[in-house]
């Protein structure tokens, strides 16, 4: 049994962070069989977080964010070719170029792509960008070098806010349009959303909340945009930051529980089929995976977090080469970070899984604080602003379902320890998808009713 799981053919679809880390772990755990990585981009795996930060600032060229490969993989790389389908009975991945790749075990790590601007003609104009890939970043950075008169950022989630921050740091005029009441509100709730709004404005952003962009203007080139409140602006560049779309279309006929919310898998990263039966040879990890988490009532979580991609890929890889009793669950507490407008924001837990929030350390006034989130009297998340070193303490409170609010006595507790409503909006009122989403309990995609966002 042991020998069998260390041999055979493993195919990893998706050659970004999760795919690479899984491949490394497979080899580190003694997998000696044939290993194939399939990726639709031309490049070997590269890091995406810098694309909206250092790359836009011109501090790091976009082609210098390659991920380090920490060991010899001895793998077949099929780069620049998209997976187009999966035959789970014949155990083959079908490629867009007509070839197919047989496997004994498969890891799905196809991640997400940027949600495009819905009007295709407008999206095709010069000056209209999304930001997800290296090419996106090269193109956008080049346009920013040409000093556009104004940049419009559509959507004030993390990516949109980071882009706006980079533009301001380069001295460019920026308008940010957000359908919700404040930037970051979909991930962090009202209190920190308000702080983010204040900071954006203090940094000179023309921030417009509660509005949508009704039209991008121009012929071949973008010249401006119209808003739902009847106003308009001139702009040379528009960056569409409306969140991400999960790359699951290629699995539509596979019979797996795969859909717009991701590929549903169990705590051991094994994919479910559409009837809720767990497979034993198909695994999922990273942004594309949707998995149950005991800290959040076993609801299925979809995360777009760097750290989750790494941790989940390692668990998936371990479980691909270890028999049942040796398998491990993926239980890490979700965590992510962002840097924008001089702030270092870090989060542990799921802030949107909350009804109350309290500023446990520091103060909003100084923009240095820890906000702790609670749900029905237990701690479920904490977000630090310029104070990341305290987060481990709160992570432990989350893991142990400690009572909310957390005990008083922090040396730098400044504000009233009285909890406030966490004021987490319904994702439907946001213009961008949340980077953390609880997506209910059911693995069966047929039972998921989806309404397109209006």
């Amino acid at each position, binding site marked *: 049994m042991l020998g069998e799981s260390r041999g055979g053919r493993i195919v990893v679809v998706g050659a970004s962070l999760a795919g690479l880390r899984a491949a490394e772990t497979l080899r580190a755990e003694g997998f000696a069989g044939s290993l194939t990585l399939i990726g639709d981009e031309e490049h070997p795996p590269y890091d995406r977080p810098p694309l909206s930060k250092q790359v836009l600032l011109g501090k790091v060229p976009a082609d210098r964010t390659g991920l380090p490969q920490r060991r010899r993989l001895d793998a077949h790389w099929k780069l620049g070719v998209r997976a187009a389908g999966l035959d789970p009975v014949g155990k083959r991945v079908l490629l867009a170029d007509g070839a197919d790749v047989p496997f004994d075990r498969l890891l799905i790590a196809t991640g997400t792509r940027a949600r495009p601007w819905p009007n295709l003609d407008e999206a095709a104009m010069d000056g209209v960008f999304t930001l997800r890939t290296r090419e996106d970043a090269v193109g956008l950075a080049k346009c920013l070098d040409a000093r556009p008169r104004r940049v419009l950022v559509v959507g004030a989630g993390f990516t949109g806010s980071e882009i706006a921050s980079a533009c301001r740091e380069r001295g460019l005029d920026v308008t940010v349009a957000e359908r919700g009441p404040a930037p970051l509100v979909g991930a962090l709730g009202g209190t920190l959303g308000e702080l983010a709004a204040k900071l954006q404005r203090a940094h000179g952003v023309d921030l417009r909340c509660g509005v949508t962009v009704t039209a991008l203007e121009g012929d071949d080139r973008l010249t401006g945009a119209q808003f739902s409140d009847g106003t308009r602006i001139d702009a040379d560049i528009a960056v569409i930051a409306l969140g991400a779309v999960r790359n699951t279309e290629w699995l539509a006929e596979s019979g797996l529980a795969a859909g717009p919310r991701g590929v549903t898998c169990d705590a051991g990263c094994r994919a479910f089929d559409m009837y809720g039966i767990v497979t034993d040879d198909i695994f999922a990890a990273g942004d594309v995976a949707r998995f149950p988490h005991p800290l959040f009532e076993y609801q299925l979580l979809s995360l777009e977090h760097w750290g989750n991609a790494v941790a989940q890929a390692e668990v998936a890889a371990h479980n691909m080469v270890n028999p049942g009793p040796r398998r491990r669950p993926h239980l890490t507490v979700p965590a992510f970070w962002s840097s924008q407008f001089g702030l270092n924001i870090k989060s542990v837990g799921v802030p949107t899984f909350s009804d109350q929030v309290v500023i446990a350390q520091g103060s909003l006034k*100084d923009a240095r604080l820890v906000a702790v989130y609670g749900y029905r009297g237990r701690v479920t998340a904490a977000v630090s602003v310029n104070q990341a*070193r*305290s987060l*481990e303490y709160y992570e432990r409170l989350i893991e142990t379902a400690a009572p909310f609010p957390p*005990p*008083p006595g*922090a*040396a*730098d*507790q400044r504000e009233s320890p009285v909890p406030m409503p966490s004021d987490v909006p319904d994702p439907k009122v946001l213009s961008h998808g949340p980077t953390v989403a609880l997506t209910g309990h059911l693995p069966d995609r047929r039972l998921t009713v989806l309404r397109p966002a209006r």
Partner: protein
Amino acid sequence: MAADTLFQRITDYTHRADPYPLYAELRENGVARQDDGSYLVGTYHEIAALLHDPRISSDRRHRTAPDETAGAAEALPPSFIGLDDPEHHRLRGLAMRSFGPPHTPDRIDGMHEEITRIVRDLIAGFQGRERIDVVDDFAYPLPVTVICRLLGVPTEDEPRFRLWSDAIVAGFDPTPGEDPVERQRAGTEARKAMGLYLGELAERRRGHPSDDMLSAFVNDAGPGGQLTPLETMTTAVLLLIAGHETTVNLITNGMLTLLRHPEALERLRGEPALMPRAVEELLRFEPPVHMLPQRTPLADVEVAGITVPRGSPLILMLASGNRDPRRFSDPDRFDPAREDNQHLGFGSGVHSCFGAPLARLETQIALHELLQHLDTPRLVEDPPEYRRSPVLRGPRHLFIERGGV
């Protein structure tokens, strides 16, 4: 609850060469109140949790029974190592401006060549001598020279501040059972004298900037403002002492450990790329700082089932946590290639070691060069004679015979 005397035994000089069996006893017994009223914590996960717990103060003035000398009118106020946020954060940030990222990202990396040169000069001084004291001939002068260059302190003044430094270190030695008042008074005096000395050096640079940290303290103002003259004194004293008294132990403990593990020594000679990991393992296996003696809970805090009352002295035994079998597999084995080695050698949390990047670089270069230049080094006595302090633990001398050449 019966009071324990374990802390007395740990600090007793007779156990300095090998405190590890006592640490094992501490982990076994769990958190216990000592007969001097303090609480010792020796298990990794509990220490790590307390290092991140915002209710644990580093400011001794929060103790229910304050020490007599620290609050004396003529004493310098605490430096940032003895303060809590937000004050700690402000002062540490101002000091970091001229030491590391984001404002001065290249300072330490830029010292690589200079440190290598200092190391090679010291090794050249071994010429013609069969017996070397690794401490006095190498591991002490190296970090002193480096911290002096970095701060902008004349190396010739070393004999003066060595005396002050000795008195300051003795002043915070928490060894119970001896009358500490005289030691603490002497420590307070020495700290003040060193502060005045460094403050004067800094003031002379005001308006005459040079490329060192004292100059930056008085000449560079950032968005967070600038250190006051008094804060310049307390910060400079802290950095000089820390740069002076800790890395010496790391290098010496490192050489001692390698000489006790010849197979590791040989491996590192042939595989220099392994040195950064070996230094991390040294920080776990024989850390230069064995305990953090000055923490105090601001509320009653439960640690491993024991309530530590607000205001009690709380002592975190980092070196014991580093040997906790619940965190590290085979913890008493020195493994220069150890993986998953998140040791407590530099502490953790908001007070995590300010100078860690410098200490790492100095030790990596120092040990590498020693291994390349000593043919068949041999320990003259094992265990060597140790320094008195149970906090900053390391040999007072480490005599080796060079062999070969």
